[in-house]
């Protein structure tokens, strides 16, 4: 009484037995390599359980959650202005960009619109945090491939942007500057001129990286054709940001998204979305480099065009958000970041769901890492560019 399923099962078992016999005869044995949680290439506490055959990966499984801090839950017991302090720490390299979508969602619920000057300065700081974030990637990717020096250049030149962010907001890493209805403060005197000089330095840095890293034959040999993500696979895994634009998908929330009331002002600027058709590690690096350049140009335009006026709309002293739900997403340095905020009319949000970019970007790793060599694990992870805080929240 053999059913078809049983026959298939038998076939499978016999195949396994044959494999085992071959393994016994030539004595090969797989090896399970734990990459992380403490590993220099995972910049944080990510763990990849890789099953290896020699140096080739048979299966790879990312284990996340070592840095889970429960921000979604913590948000429910804090008032709206207090939540920005928490969510600053999600993507700690581009902190200000984390605050913006949450504040926009709260503004949407309250039907408050920030004055134009506040919107422009918000966009300005948003793009500066993108530079502060992605510049470090440009150096770090070189470290993953084995060149030590570029990361020192990245830290050196990132300082120019961080200094400007600190001058404007008072915080280098965690500005906590965005408020419902506007901003905490206006820009300090002389900031515009200094920022323009800093942008010039950042463009020089991009040229330097292009010479030193991207033009290097070894770098190209290590990244071209490695970790190829086809556009449809990338979309089905929910990749966003430069990762999906590196696969040739021309999609950027800054340009294509619908910003509601008082969103960011990217649509009033002259800039372009860069894509690369290849979908490999190199193209992701290339797209990010172009995006830093594009951001510096955007910032120059924003600095020239800041409207005058107030930086704060009229909002009550004690912020109570009317009942309702709102979802706002923005194009953050790491990809699309969205906040789904549910309010029941109290001082604190009833529920906050954070859609962070890195979590989705990481979810493709089991598909992507299968069949590559151990050194390529590191370059692929580096090129996907995740931040642990952004994965685990």
């Amino acid at each position, binding site marked *: 009484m053999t059913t078809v399923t049983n026959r298939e099962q038998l076939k499978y078992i016999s195949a396994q037995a044959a494999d085992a016999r071959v393994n016994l005869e030539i004595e090969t044995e797989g090896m399970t390599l734990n990459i992380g949680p403490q590993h220099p290439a995972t910049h944080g506490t990510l763990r990849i359980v890789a099953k290896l055959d020699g140096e080739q990966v048979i299966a790879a499984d990312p284990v996340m959650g070592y840095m889970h801090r429960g921000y979604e839950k913590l948000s429910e017991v804090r008032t709206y202005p207090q939540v920005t302090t928490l969510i600053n720490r999600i993507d700690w390299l581009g902190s200000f960009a984390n605050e913006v979508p949450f504040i926009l969602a709260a503004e949407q619920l309250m039907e408050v619109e920030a004055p134009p000057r506040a919107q422009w300065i918000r966009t300005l700081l948003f793009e500066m945090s993108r530079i502060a974030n992605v510049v470090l990637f440009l150096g770090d990717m070189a470290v*993953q491939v*084995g060149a030590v020096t570029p990361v020192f250049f990245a830290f050196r030149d990132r300082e120019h942007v961080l200094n400007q962010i600190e001058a404007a907001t008072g915080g280098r890493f965690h500005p906590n500057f965005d408020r419902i209805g506007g901003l905490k403060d206006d820009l300090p005197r002389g900031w515009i001129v200094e920022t323009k000089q800093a942008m010039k330095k950042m463009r020089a840095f991009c040229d330097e990286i292009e010479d030193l890293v991207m033009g290097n034959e070894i770098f190209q040999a290590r990244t071209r054709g490695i970790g190829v993500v086809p556009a449809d696979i990338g979309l089905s895994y929910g990749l966003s940001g430069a990762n999906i634009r590196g696969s040739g998908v021309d999609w950027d929330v800054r340009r294509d998204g619908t910003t509601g009331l008082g969103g960011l002002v990217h649509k009033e600027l002259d800039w372009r979305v860069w894509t690369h058709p290849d979908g490999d590690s190199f193209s992701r690096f290339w797209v990010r480099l172009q995006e830093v350049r594009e951001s510096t140009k955007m910032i120059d335009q924003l600095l020239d065009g800041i409207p005058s006026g107030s930086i704060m709309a009229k909002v009550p002293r004690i912020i109570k958000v009317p009942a309702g739900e709102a979802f706002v997403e923005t194009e953050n340095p790491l990809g699309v970041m969205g906040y789904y905020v549910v309010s029941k009319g109290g001082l604190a949000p009833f529920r906050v769901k954070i859609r962070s970019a890195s979590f989705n970007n990481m979810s493709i790793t089991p598909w992507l890492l299968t069949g590559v060599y151990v050194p390529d694990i590191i370059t692929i992870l580096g090129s996907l560019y995740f931040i642990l805080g952004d994965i685990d929240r």
Partner: protein
Amino acid sequence: MNATLLLAELAYWQQTGIRVGIGLASVLLVAGALVYMHLFKAVSFMQSRLGPMEAGPYGSLQLLAEVGKHIQKEDIFPRNADRFVFAAAPFVVLASTFLLVVVVPAGPDALFINSELGIYLGLAVSSVSVLGILMAGWGSSNKYSLLGGLRATGQLIAYELPLILAVVGVVIQAGTMNMADIVYAQANGEIFGFGALGNPYILTQGVAFVIFLIAMQAELAQAPFDMPVAESELVTGYMTEYSGMRFLMFFIGEFATAGVFAAVASVLFLGGWYVPGIAPDADIMNVLGPLVMLVKIVVLTFLIFWTRFTMPRFREDQLQRLAWKFLIPLALANIVVTGVLKVTF
């Protein structure tokens, strides 16, 4: 010749003691100088850092501080380690360096042995370090170390061949394997009848020199050939589990081997202790020669570390491809051309 006679009057154990002392001093002092000049200072300036500045004037005592730190540290053995193999590995690696320095002459009499098979012996003993690295990788009972050790073995064996084949060109041109005679051959040689500067073989064996430098970079496991240590993938590979004194031995070994290989390269290609204008067998060269060698070593090691801190790293298969499909055929062609020219002229 006086120095040799002086040495010959001593008892054998006294001669040996002096030789061992000078060998230790020459390797360790050169290694220390290289660490300070290249790792602490030159590379720091490349990476827009100051480098050590606090210990002594311009941080000149930093080296002592580092050595002191490592000596104080606990010598940790992993629980499952093969204790003897784990403990012996750094000594094997360092031994190959000390054996290699034996063949390098630094002056007409300032040499350890005057062997007719000098370079042959040198290339043979330099391979011993592979054994030490494999021992370290295996003995650590760490998967990263094992991968590092295996990578190192594959790489060092692959690059041994272009290294030897590059040397063959020099040996054919000099007509001898004696390191001192190679220096004399370069000092007395001439190119197209112009012999005032001698003929350092970098001019006629330029291809071999480039191959030798590349293979040397790989033998030393420096970037772009630092697959075995690869700190961003394998967390420094076979050295992962080492601490304290044993780690320091690996660290010194890295720089000492760089210095000694640079010394071999400067003897083979840059004319060794010879400088134009002074006869290479003059007595004064016993004093000046080591200094001239030191300058050449510093220049060559600067090239090594400059490349190391600029270049990204090859992948294992790319690295093997470079050796077997490019360097070895090129080195063989160089040998053929050298041989043909040697017969014709």
